[in-house]
């Protein structure tokens, strides 16, 4: 990335943070609101966005598929389903068991989508998206079933499932941020393997990369980042899909710069989306997940249209 582009990039991140700190009916008037309400929320949006942006870049690279992201592959649904079951089982959101369960849900759902897509023989972009949709739909139905049968607690769970960044517990925020940082660091330490995988597993193998091993490793890293993001903010889609596409235009496709830049870009994108949800429809609030879907779904359609014309 050139120096000018880096400047624009960090300026966008700073602007998103300022927007988020200022967004709301009270504006800049109360320091108390800014420090106690908006600052934790801004930090939560940054962490969730970074986790999802990172996961998107890893999935898109290791699968050589520009349509993949944790939402579309079912990773987020798997994590959300596991989180909802943990809530109902009374497992604390700060306990390691909760994080392990959410990770297991994410990893299980992702591998199920991948395995289903592979059943068709050659792994095609479309088969992967279809398998992800099937897995997501099933898991979402399970979550809805659980929500309707657990009435007394379902209101807060409903907001969690929609994807929102309210009332973040500091313990969860710190644990998730550390997981996302660690996943990002390990991924950056293997950037060249990810680049080789982006040329396809056959090419990667002959360049000296073990494709099976790297696939499991990068799935695990992406699932760790996604589950940490879901633990804070529930199901938020399209951050992981959109961010790498936008960032690639600035940095090029190499994971060496793309991976950290996608994490920062995802952080900026979600922070801005959450702030927009709080300010544009004030005094009512739109969950960040809904704002992202409003922006992301048309983006996904555009990507489909572009890939159907064979010029991604």
């Amino acid at each position, binding site marked *: 990335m050139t120096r000018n582009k880096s400047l624009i990039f960090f300026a966008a991140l700073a602007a998103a943070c300022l927007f988020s700190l200022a967004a709301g009916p009270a504006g800049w008037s109360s320091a108390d609101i800014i420090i106690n309400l908006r600052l934790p929320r801004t930090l939560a949006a940054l962490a969730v966005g970074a986790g999802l942006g990172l996961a998107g870049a890893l999935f898109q690279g290791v699968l050589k598929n520009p349509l993949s992201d944790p939402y579309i592959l079912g990773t987020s649904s798997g994590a959300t389903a596991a989180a909802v079951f943990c809530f109902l089982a009374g497992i604390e959101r700060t306990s390691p068991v909760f994080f392990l369960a959410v990770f297991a849900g994410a990893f299980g759902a992702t591998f199920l989508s991948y395995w289903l897509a592979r059943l068709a023989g050659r792994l095609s972009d479309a088969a992967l998206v279809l398998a992800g949709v099937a897995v997501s739909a099933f898991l979402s139905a399970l979550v809805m079933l659980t929500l309707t049968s657990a009435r007394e607690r379902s209101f807060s769970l409903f907001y969690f499932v929609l994807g929102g960044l309210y009332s973040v517990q500091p313990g969860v925020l710190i644990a998730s941020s550390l997981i996302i940082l660690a996943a990002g660091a390990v991924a950056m330490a293997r950037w*060249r393997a990810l680049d*080789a995988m*982006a040329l396809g597993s056959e*090419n990667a193998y*002959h*360049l*000296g990369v073990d494709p099976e091993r790297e696939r499991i490793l990068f799935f695990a890293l992406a699932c760790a980042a996604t589950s940490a993001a879901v633990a804070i903010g529930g199901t938020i889609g399209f951050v992981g899909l959109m961010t790498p596409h936008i960032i690639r235009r600035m940095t*090029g496709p190499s994971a060496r710069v793309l991976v950290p830049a996608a994490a920062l870009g995802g952080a900026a994108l979600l922070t801005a989306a959450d702030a927009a949800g709080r300010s544009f429809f004030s005094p009512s609030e739109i969950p960040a997940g809904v704002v992202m879907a409003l922006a992301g779904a048309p983006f996904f359609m555009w990507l489909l249209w572009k890939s159907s014309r064979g010029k991604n």
Partner: protein
Amino acid sequence: MPVLKVTGLTFSYGPRPLIQGLSFELRSGDFMCVLGPNGSGKSTLLKLLTGFMKASSGSVKLGGKEAALIEPGRLARLAAYVASETSTPYDFSVRETVLLGRTARAGFWRGYRAEDGAAAGLAMEETGITALAERSINTLSTGERQLVFIAQALAQEAGLLLLDEPTSHLDLKYKAEIMALLARLGRRGLAVAAVLHEPALARLGCNKALLLNGGGAYSFGAESEMLSPERLAAAYGLPIDSPLLP
């Protein structure tokens, strides 16, 4: 010591063997073409040689060591492979793509060193794509992209170069250019094996030929001997006076 030594290699997709008891060896400087009708196992053979696919029995030795026991990083320093077509949705530049040929030498983490840049530069020069270095590989013609992946394989600095139909989808000029390049690499001391679709191309520099007849039957030997009209006619199921035979 041969660069590649294959003994009793056997492989099947179903109950009928595709490759059976195949044995041959390549030495430094050999340029071998692999010929045979569709479905005779030419492409499969190359993937068996690098271990990308597993043979049911037999042995493949690279530089004297059993290929199945060599870990991927080391394997990539012994043998390089160019697929018939490699595509990616991402706009990697030609230079980035060729530099990825250094993966096995540079590892996954560190940046590229001067020696990596030099190897990639030399590979691009050898394949005549230096002028394309900053272009996205997705903006190139099929022939140019083929050259990029040959350059990537050369940057690996392996002693054995395997190519799966490097000339398919290309016009005659590109076919001749790529064959001349491979012959030049052979003279420089590499062992080269290329799957070819057209027997006539083997006349452009090959010294060895492997003829797969399908169902496991094969013959291996000097190019001049293997490319006799009788053998080719039998392998491809053509009349001996067919104008398609060289």
